[in-house]
């Protein structure tokens, strides 16, 4: 469950960004990106967020929205491009092991929405 550590970092970053923007909050909505190959699990992130959010007044009422982009498995043998959820040992089309993975590795804090009372 290293997702708890990730969410702790996420919350610190949100607090940083909100302070930097000169806002008071509270945060109503958070958009994050958890790529399928990022090594983090979106359900565990949600669980950890529910666990930790009540301790932080700034985000305790925030809605967490998670985008989970897939990765592309590109085959160098048959040129196929397949959307994938996980690392594969071989091309799903031709079985070649000459494959490359692209995208789906991001773990990002995308946007923070706050109540309309910014200074």
């Amino acid at each position: 469950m290293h997702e708890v550590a990730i969410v702790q970092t996420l919350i610190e970053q949100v607090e940083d960004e909100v302070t930097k923007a000169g806002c008071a909050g509270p945060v109503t909505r958070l958009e994050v990106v958890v790529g399928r190959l990022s090594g983090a699990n979106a359900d565990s992130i949600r669980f950890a967020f529910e666990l930790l959010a009540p301790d932080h007044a700034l985000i305790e009422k925030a809605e967490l929205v998670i985008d989970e982009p897939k990765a592309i498995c590109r085959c160098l043998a048959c040129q196929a491009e397949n959307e994938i959820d996980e690392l594969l040992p071989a091309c799903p089309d031709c079985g070649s092991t000459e494959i490359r993975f692209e995208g789906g590795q991001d773990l990002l804090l995308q946007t923070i929405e706050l109540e309309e009372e910014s200074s």
Partner: protein
Amino acid sequence: MKIVAAKKIMKANEKHADLNRVRFRLAGTYVVNLMGSPGCGKTTLLEAMFAKIREQLAPAVIEGDLASAIDAERIEELGIPVVQINTDGACHLNATMVAAALENLKCEEIDLLVIENVGNLVCTAGFDLGESLRIVILSVSEGDDKVAKYPTIFKKSDILLVTKIDQLSDGRFDLDRVKADMAHLNPEANVFSVSALTGEGMDEFVGWLAEKAKKSKQK
């Protein structure tokens, strides 16, 4: 109102990892992040490795475990500087924990620092500690399907070290399969096979590592 951040969530850890990296570079310390399951032989490997390497390079160790100082005591018995980190339940080390441990080590006197991560084949892969090299261990007793089953950590490592190869004789571990799985997942990684018990393969691995550490010092 909306703030567009578009920033990596692990950035806090990465910042601390970069600070560690600068500190290591200034001190001329080569740093290995050693990862693998509980019981795969991380500490036993270190004991065998240091016996060979300590004449050429001054080693030190940071031990990461949930609890106890059992591993640190084993390293201490060799007369090698060691700091134990107890994570109190956390499944991995992060860069901040390593920075705190460094308060108790003199980096300038260390050529090769091994950070023995918490025994875990999953979470440790996600946290940069500021290391120069990532080694993942797979012991023969764990089975030859683990590269395929836990791909993330193998994809993110520079070296795969297969340990306990004295147990290969029972024929249930297909070393070629492991090498093939690794080659598909991570073509750039080097694979070494060793037995800390019999010493088989140790010279090759230790020689390679010592060379790497010395080269980084010259830079």
